[in-house]
């Protein structure tokens, strides 16, 4: 039963996935969309399984102090930190801090109204079309004059991870509105800490890994890319033309070089690539059919 049920389910859904392409009925389309939603939910659930799996794989190695166990501690700690800062804690402790407006009569009952915003210096204040910092270089609060009527005051921070605040006030001629606010920090996937870790830890590490490729390509070019025979010589020649033809310097050296590179891409490359893709597609169809028909069972954990 442990293997038969998944096998039958796989067969049914596999047949359906193929058949729905040939049944242009709206009911089939609706059912298909439902199944695709299920697929999305299953994939999301796989993240949870992945987390549990990482714990199962790495924790015993840390406990036994196996080789490189220190890196596994960093892995688990990093995953734990990202999980914790990715939760919207501000919803638990309340993040609905709002800016307040106090309206008072001004020195004169005529002329424009005045808006004074008392906010930290790093807050961006927008009053109507006027934009400025919460405090100027001298530490004075942002002050502007507006036409009498309704005015919208927005407070935000330039950096991500803070909840913008917005208040509206209706002012008459000469009135002075004093707005006090400070956009609160958010937690969760759009929160300050999560975004900071993404921008300052994940993004540089991710980029560094990819950038290292340039060094290894150069090293491999010296050590491995050799014209040992005619085929390797052809590959090498094509690579040189592509390298030079796809950069601006290629055109500066010889006007026709980019065209030759484009021909290489359009004709020999696309021809070969198409053959590989078709071969892979036929292989995928064959494997898919074997899975649907129950002949291929390795995905169920058997041989």
């Amino acid at each position, binding site marked *: 039963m442990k293997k038969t049920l998944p096998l039958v389910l796989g067969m049914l859904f596999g047949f359906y996935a193929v058949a729905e392409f040939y049944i242009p009925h709206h009911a089939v*389309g609706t059912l*298909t*969309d439902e199944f*695709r*939603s299920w*697929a*999305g939910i299953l*994939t*999301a659930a796989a*993240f949870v399984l992945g987390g549990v799996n990482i714990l199962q794989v790495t924790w015993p190695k840390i406990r036994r102090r196996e080789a490189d166990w220190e890196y596994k501690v960093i892995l688990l700690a990093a995953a734990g930190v990202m999980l914790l800062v990715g939760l919207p804690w501000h919803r638990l402790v309340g993040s609905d801090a709002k800016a307040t407006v106090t309206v008072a009569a001004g020195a004169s009952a005529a002329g424009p109204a005045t808006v004074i915003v008392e906010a930290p210096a790093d807050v961006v204040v927008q009053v109507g079309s006027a934009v400025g910092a919460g405090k100027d270089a001298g530490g004075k609060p942002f002050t502007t004059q507006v036409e009498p009527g309704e005015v919208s005051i927005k407070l935000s921070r330039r950096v*991500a991870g803070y909840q913008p605040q917005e208040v509206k006030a209706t002012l008459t001629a000469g009135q002075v509105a004093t707005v006090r606010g400070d956009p609160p920090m958010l937690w969760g*996937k*759009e929160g300050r800490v*999560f*975004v900071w870790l*993404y*921008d300052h830890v*994940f*993004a*540089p590490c*991710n*980029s560094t*890994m*990819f*950038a290292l490729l*340039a*060094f290894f*390509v*150069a*090293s491999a*070019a*010296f*050590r*491995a*890319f*050799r*014209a*040992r025979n005619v085929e390797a010589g052809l590959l*090498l020649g094509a*690579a*040189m033309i592509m*390298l*030079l033809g*796809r*950069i*601006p*310097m290629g*055109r*500066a050296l010889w006007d026709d070089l*980019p065209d030759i590179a*484009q021909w290489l*891409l*359009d004709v020999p*490359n*696309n021809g070969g*690539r*198409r053959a590989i*893709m078709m071969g892979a597609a036929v292989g995928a169809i064959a494997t898919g059919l074997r899975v649907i028909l129950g002949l291929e069972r390795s995905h169920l954990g058997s041989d």
Partner: protein
Amino acid sequence: MSATEQKPAHWSEKLQTFDRRWIFLAMSLAIVIPLFFPLGLPAKPDPMTKAAYNAVESLPPGSRVFVSLDMDPASTPELEPFFKAVMLHLKRKNVKVVFGTTWYSAPPLVERYMREVVEASIAPAGTAGYSGAPDRPYVKNVDYVNLGFRDGKGAIIQLFGSDLRKAFDGRANDGTALDQIPMMSGIKQLKDFDLIVLLNAGFPGAKEYVQFVGTRYKLKMIAACTAVSTTDLAPYFQTGQLIGLVGGMAAAAGYEDLVGKKGAGTSGADVLNIGSIVVMLAIIFGNVVYFVSPRRRRGGR
């Protein structure tokens, strides 16, 4: 000379085993020096980039475009220049834009793009070196909608094709119901968009869009990809399944040239120039060493 005394190694054999950190140093210099002393060689667009530009250029004002940002921070040097250039192109044509991503590592990056590129003006009037029409800051849920991230790889792309609203539970990333956003009226699935722009750094990406929804729903799609993926996607351009393809930083520089505003793609093209030269010199040097090697002459490999 005694029989047991070994002959000194040939110079080419010594070079075969030389410290590869010298190559790393050469590559480092090739990357850093052009950033300080740019060559400024003009980056001309290739036919695939021109086709992508023409696809955007042919959009009438008020068109609606879906942009899929399937990328991560590692691919930003190659894809971000195109993103900025195509957003300037779309914004100055007053095109409404809907964003989504199928990459779990993309959402904070997408949020940053919304703040720094979409909600800000890329080329306001008076921008030095830019003679095109200025763009304006876009307003969330008025000029653009960010649908956010959905996982599910190929399956979720298929759902985008048949029912985009269902894939995102009928809500934008900020929780606003799509029914309450005027620019989303009449949009249920991908084929309701006038153009699909794919920024693709790998799987899932442009290839899956072509295979699962492109041909099935007859979508007009252009793609930008990293340089290494260009050969993967070029066959789809040739068959018309992609109506434009911007492959790598050099092509992004070409797109910047067409849009008329030079950016990171153009300055990065200098790094590409010198970096590629270093790789070519490494290949030539490696082959010279290989061919003069006495061991190879004796028939060895």
